[in-house]
């Protein structure tokens, strides 16, 4: 087994042991980090692996959250069915929206994803009778077999680990390799016989699926949901997490989510000017650490071990 896998297992064991410390703070924070980490990793399938700047990823997060809440509360489905459909709802939305988006490139692609996510937001915001409009949906309880915050933490851990495992398999598969060739050079990829638009669409769907899963988890975690889940600042925030951690490394976005959410929790207990801090972090990042946290450390390691 490779060294990276040993490190991952060690991290996983540590994460599994966290609730034993009895700290509600860490259980809360880490649940949040795991959920947004999955969201960021799924965005990064587009950003870092396929070279598509999606500025509307909040749409699938929000769709996942609303799909789960509505399926449980309005359709009265059982947890398992509802949760499975949550991911599929994101994939279905990504299929429809992505079909149009992948025809465009670069900045136009980014704007179309943004425009579609705003439509999703506006529909949820205005469709009072179904979504509760501005007030959102309250009282989303833990499913029966979960019952406590600690149990939900373990549930989240399992879902996220399985999802991330699948995503990692995908990026290390032939399909994932082709995505990276599209990122580097779509025109050339076409000339090795790849239907680039189709591959981009598939990546979009996979990303939408896992974004929706993270949205569903967040709905349960938060017990209530609002239209703001699909509003564009959420799309921006998950982009920042991804860049903060490093978009050219698989686990970078996870690290970014962890650092950002930890800082937010700490900073907001001292000052109300969190946006200012976040903006400043982002500026520092863009100017001094364009490879993100993981990229920075990878460069340092390369410097110290020039032999490899």
């Amino acid at each position, binding site marked *: 087994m490779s060294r990276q896998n040993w490190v991952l297992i060690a991290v996983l064991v540590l994460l599994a042991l966290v609730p034993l410390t009895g700290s509600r703070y860490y259980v809360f924070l880490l649940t949040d980090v795991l959920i947004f980490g999955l969201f960021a990793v799924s965005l990064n399938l587009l950003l870092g692996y396929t070279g598509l700047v999606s500025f509307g990823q909040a749409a699938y997060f929000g769709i996942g959250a609303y799909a789960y809440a509505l399926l449980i509360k309005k359709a009265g489905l059982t947890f398992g069915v509802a949760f499975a459909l949550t991911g599929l709802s994101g994939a279905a939305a990504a299929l429809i929206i992505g079909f149009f988006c992948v025809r465009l490139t670069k900045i136009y692609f980014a704007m179309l994803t943004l425009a579609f996510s705003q439509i999703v937001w506006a529909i949820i915001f205005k469709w009072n009778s179904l979504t509760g409009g501005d007030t959102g949906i309250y009282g989303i309880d833990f499913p029966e077999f979960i019952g406590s915050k600690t149990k939900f933490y373990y549930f989240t851990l399992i879902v996220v680990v399985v999802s991330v495992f699948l995503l990692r398999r995908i990026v290390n*598969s032939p399909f994932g390799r082709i995505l990276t060739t599209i990122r580097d050079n779509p*025109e050339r990829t076409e000339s*090795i*016989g790849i*239907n680039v638009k189709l591959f981009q669409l598939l990546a979009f769907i996979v990303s939408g699926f896992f974004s929706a899963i993270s949205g569903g988890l967040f709905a349960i975690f938060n017990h209530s949901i609002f239209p703001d889940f699909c509003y564009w600042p959420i799309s921006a925030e998950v982009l920042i997490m991804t860049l903060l951690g490093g978009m050219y490394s698989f686990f970078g976005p996870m690290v970014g989510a962890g650092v950002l959410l930890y800082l937010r929790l700490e900073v907001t207990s001292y000052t109300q000017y969190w946006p200012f801090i976040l903006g400043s972090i982002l500026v520092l990042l863009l100017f001094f650490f364009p490879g993100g946290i993981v990229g920075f450390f990878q460069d340092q390691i390369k410097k110290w071990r020039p032999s490899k």
Partner: protein
Amino acid sequence: MILQVKNLVKSFDGFMAIAGVNFTVKKGELCAIIGPNGAGKTTLFNLITGHLSMDKGQIVFNDIDISRLNAHKVCRLGLGRSFQRINIFSRLTVFENIQAAVLTHRGKSFNFFTPVQPLFQEETHEILERVGLQEHQDEVSGSLAYGFQKQLELGIALAMEPKMLLLDEPTAGMSAQETRATIELIGEIVKEKGLTLLFTEHDMSVVFSISERIMVLHQGKLIASGPPDEVRANPEVQKVYMGESR
């Protein structure tokens, strides 16, 4: 007849880039297309490989009408292509570049869950060796020297096991020495694999050294076609070329 181009027309904003081009290429032939800058050579290539759509005309490759096919489909039929500007996957290693092409050629690109690294090691290494890049296989291709990047491009095209190669200025930007080495390499590979070659080139000594037939493109039209000596002696070609170089 491996490639037939009939009455090809393409205009941009009213400008006739290709104004009715006709030619054929026989299987195994080594053909060059020359012409002054702006004659339409790259446009012609883009039309053949489906990177641009034509206004009028027909292109038949290997008895299949490819006039309306997308680039990725044309490529799968065995028409390999290299580009004038460097066109590689610059964040990937040299090995990964070639392997990606092998993967799609072998129809494995739709595999979502198999680890990619061990696949087609042998085939990939064979190509790396063929284009002389085996020592650089783990380097990130974007940081390679220019000449190596060009070789890598050729390698990517070869990985598709094409029946015919379209090379757009394969030696653009190379030193005289690199140019000679590259041309020798291309010549060897083409003969060894029995490929058909159609290429554009600005360096006349290269053109006359390896082509069996030369076509001259001028203002979107073919003004001459024939063996090197005949084309060299053609008065119209001389007028176009000498006029430009002075």
